[in-house]
């Protein structure tokens, strides 16, 4: 019962996000975005994890379009919301097959903590970058983010090994 409720909540939230993102978007992009809750809900209910990636891929064009047309802060927050909902759906999908010994609740808390921390920093960083937008060269930003991604990967490997 709790699983169904959680799945329904995630699917409804995703649908609301899709509706918000498809406003003013081209028909194909809007259609893909509005249909994306279906694979997400199916994945959360049945445990077919690749469907979560499919739902996210269907949502991505609308997210990119929102970043190109609208506010940077809002598009970053929309991306964060999409990532958070996809993570929760993935968590539900992972726990569909195996018995759950308090795992989902604890994992959901941790995913929410990660999302909350990211929300705080994203809001601050994008708001600051919007104010500083003119002096920031996009090529420098690309190089910085690429370096950040590579560092993150290197760090993650170091932690694991």
């Amino acid at each position: 019962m709790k699983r169904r409720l959680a799945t329904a909540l995630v699917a409804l939230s995703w649908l609301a996000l899709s509706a918000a993102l498809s406003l003013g978007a081209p028909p194909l992009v809007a259609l893909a975005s509005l249909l994306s809750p279906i694979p997400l809900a199916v994945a959360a209910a049945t445990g077919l994890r690749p469907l979560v990636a499919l739902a996210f891929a269907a949502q991505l064009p609308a997210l990119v379009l929102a970043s190109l047309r609208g506010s940077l802060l809002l598009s970053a927050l929309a991306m964060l919301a999409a990532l958070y909902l996809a993570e929760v759906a993935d968590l539900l999908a992972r726990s569909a097959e195996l018995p759950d010994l308090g795992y989902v609740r604890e994992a959901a808390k941790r995913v929410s903590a990660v999302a909350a921390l990211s929300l705080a920093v994203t809001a601050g960083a994008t708001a600051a970058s919007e104010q500083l937008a003119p002096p920031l060269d996009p090529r420098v930003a690309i190089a910085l983010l690429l370096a950040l991604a590579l560092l993150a990967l290197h760090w993650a490997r170091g932690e694991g090994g």
Partner: protein
Amino acid sequence: MSSPRSPCRRATRLTAKGRLYLALALGLLLLAAVLENFRPLALTVPLALMAGFSGLLHPRVEVRVEREVERSRVVAGERVRVKLRVRSSAPALAEVRDRVSRGSVVRGSSGALALLGGGVELEYEALLERRGVCELGPARVVLGDPLRLWEEEWVCGEAVEVYALPKLQAARGVGLGASYTGVWPGEVLSRRSGRGYEFYGVREYARGDELRRVNWKATARLGRLMVNERVEERVTDALIVVDAGLLGLLPGEEVEGLVDAEASLAASLALHLLRSGNRVGLVLRGRESLWLRPAFGRRQLEAILCALARLEPGEPAPLDYALNMLTPYLLKPNAEFIAITPLLDAYVAESIAQLAPRYSVLVISPNPFAGRRGAAYRMLEVERNSLVVKLGRVCRVVDWSPGSPLPRAARRAGRPKPPRGARA
């Protein structure tokens, strides 16, 4: 029974989701470069932050696993209960999965998502439907960051082998005709007179003979006290040869059924013979060849049952080698030689026929073609039947359809010949 403690092996890897995160970040960077517009880069900020913060919450723990298996020997069709205790040095989210190489988990689950604290106990029951060796373990404990972008896999605990022993069936009434006998009382007719059930002869009364053994008719006829003598029954040596080779002619599932029937029959005969005090040896010819020297007792029975549990169809070496080289080495002349073979090849029959003058040979041949239709199977069955008839001229052959009672098939094959030298 607990699994031996051994250090866990640890391996770390980026998950498929982690690769997707990286691909998405790089894709957005490329898009920004192609469009010459830095706005899509705003989408990489939450991506990088989520990955980074998730990494910060990575658990740094040591994992230990203990497995407790209720029994290491079960009869095919029985269940075995397994307890798995997973301990970690600090709380961590983990996916635990214990390996069950064969059979099915019928109660509980061999896997779970768990919050490891002081310890988590996983309990399940595995049903081992068929004869064989089931490996339980090693256990896999997968730890990861909250988003599972990379995971750390701990492989812990040595595998525990659980033997699903062959089911036993009625094996009485087969009858042994060995003329080699040991010194202990048993069930095999020896060439000596003594205590037993079979009539041996009549002799004059001697002091100390029991009165109930007096043959009153002979006494009246001869005018002096005469007593009946009986054949002494003693133990013997027996070698059971199980042939699971050359079964590639049949479809997979049915081969397994036939090998199970052969193993079950061999186990039942071994149990029956060992209970009667005989020494029993074993030669297996399957994917792995194996032989056991004839011996007494429970330990030998356990060794035979475990060997039979491992029997799988296959042919690493021809059977005639086992028959011609091993038999004289393992078995004394005139002892009991029991071959369980489907008789699918003439050279097997010839090798057995060569042993007939030296041993008391009993061939039990499970018919692999019973109830089959089709011209090819009919031809194979005719060939096999001719081998059964040919072999029946030199030794006792029991043509047995697996699933039917063996004693009935054994009665059709007749009683063993009395040992040479016996007067009965």
